[in-house]
């Protein structure tokens, strides 16, 4: 999340202004994070309406708790956590309260074919086609720069499960991309 890594002094200034009830500061911080958070949620949920709902509720919750953040606090990290938790919650409700993140045998890092060429739209489509468990782990690792340890803590799974899910997700994406190219 590149936005979070901006100089802290700027971040702190906005947070402090929010604490003082400055509406413009709330809007600034919303504009700063809205796109990243919406797309994060969408990669979890695969549904724009749900992602917008998550965005809305997460920001409200974050803003309501903004007084808990001191100057050094990483508001963005916490916001991201709220978005992730809320997205998982929505996903669980849609899947009868369970997301299948199975404990699978660890597979080694797969070798990608040399001739495979990625393009953004195809990769996005392939990610959407992944099973929930694969997609969540892949999203956190590949797009949100989470380590497998952080993913394990976030999803309450083991590190090895996270690695396994990620490698399988990657393998599946490569397979999907190759299939799509064959279709073409």
């Amino acid at each position, binding site marked *: 999340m590149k936005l979070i890594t901006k100089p802290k002094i700027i971040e702190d200034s906005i947070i402090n202004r929010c604490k003082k009830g400055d509406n413009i500061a*709330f809007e600034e911080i919303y504009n700063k994070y809205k796109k990243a958070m919406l*797309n994060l949620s969408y990669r979890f949920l695969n549904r724009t309406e749900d992602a917008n709902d998550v965005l*809305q509720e997460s920001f*409200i919750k974050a*803003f309501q708790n903004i007084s808990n953040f001191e100057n050094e606090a990483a508001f963005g990290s916490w916001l991201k956590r709220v978005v992730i938790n809320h997205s998982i919650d929505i996903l669980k409700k849609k899947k009868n*309260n*369970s997301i299948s993140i199975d404990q699978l045998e660890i597979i080694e890092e797969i070798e990608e074919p040399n001739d495979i060429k990625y393009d953004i739209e195809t*990769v*996005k489509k392939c990610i959407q086609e992944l099973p929930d468990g694969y997609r969540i782990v892949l999203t956190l690792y590949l797009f949100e720069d989470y380590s497998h340890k952080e993913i394990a803590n976030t999803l*309450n799974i083991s590190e090895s499960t996270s690695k396994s899910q990620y490698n399988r997700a990657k393998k599946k994406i490569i397979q999907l991309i190759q299939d799509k190219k064959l279709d073409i």
Partner: protein
Amino acid sequence: MKSNLETFVKENRDAFDTLEPTSTVWNSINSRITRKNGAASKISWLKTFVFGASIVTGIIIVTNFTTNNKDEKSKINKNVDTILINSETQEEKSVQKNDNNKVAINIPVSSVNIVPDFMFIPENKTENLKTIFSQVYPNLEYPIEEKKPAKTLTINQSDICQCGNKFGIFILNDTIFNGIKEIEICSFNADINIIGGEDEKTYLDFEYISPAEKNKKKIVKIEQNKIFYEILGSKLTISVKSGEKTYINKGFNSIKQMKLDLRIPVSSLLSIRNGNGDISVKNIINSQSLIDNSNGDIKLSDLNSDLQVQARMGDLEIIHSQGKLNIEGGLGTISIFDFTGNIISNSSNGDTKISTIKGNLSINSSLGDQEFKSISGNTSTHSTSGDINFYDCNGNIEVESSLGDQFFQNIKGNLKSNSNSGDLKILNMIGDLDLSTELGNTNIEEQKGNLSIKSSSYV
């Protein structure tokens, strides 16, 4: 070393984020946070709007009737009949002249006196007061022409407000009701504060902070009344309605804040349904209470009641209370401290912290950690994900957990735990132990009862 896919995503990271939120998202957020922010600035005047014509019209009429009781400097405290607040359609609700339902109003004297018992004046700047009143309430007889009316209500000129082509006045502070035994509140968005006391009267304060109060030069348009209440027998029903932003002055982004304070007889039955805003209830002893809040925190203390609580978005805190407790939690944290009675709680997202309980617990949560301390009754808990921690518990414990670690310390009763994954650790336990885990480590130190373990990894 990064794979080609990882390198590709890293190099094109921003291009993957193409979705933009809909404009309604910020509008919704803004409307809710501005209400919340508004709570920071308090104005103590208690007022309810009733509709009327223009401010100018109002001022003219007020000025025409500044004749009675000008020298009176003390507060006027008169019994009047039930206060009526008409809707925008000018529809008269009812006029109750039952002595049991009289309402007393304390109003600071300032500029003008008018006859009470209604709070709506039709637009007619040329009519005199008597004519206006007789139009509104033709069947009522008031001593309007007497120099010192038996029933007098004083309002300030600044209490005149505009709504469309009508003008109106405020009802003021500390409205008092007698003989109320049941209270129902239906509110769209207000902070609600209720305190029970030994007094048999019910005191209602309602704050509404309008832009007009902050800047008299701004013209404010109010689309609907903010508060309605009616009395049927011993039941008081209060409805607080929301006002949307309807400011005529462009760019004026002030906040409409509503705050409802009630001091009620300690034994009153209570039912509260609120949309946005915090709810606080203290010192109530009754047979049952219903509290439902969509977005905002709930704080309950010193209650003796069978409680049904729904906290959809905010945090819930219950302290120093007793009775039966049934909770439907949403996204916030549930905290219960010092409670006597059985507790049933279901929550979807948010931590559950329960301590110092004399009673049995039945807890169910989807996300969020659970922590239990000093529980004297039996506990049955189910968690989809999140850690579960028990400390200093005397009763039997039954745990069903899908994800998350479990920790138990100083447990005197029996423990039965069934988990799919996550580590389990037990320190100092006296009762029998029945464990079943599929994944995760099991570590037991000091356990004196019978032992039954099905675990992939037991230390």
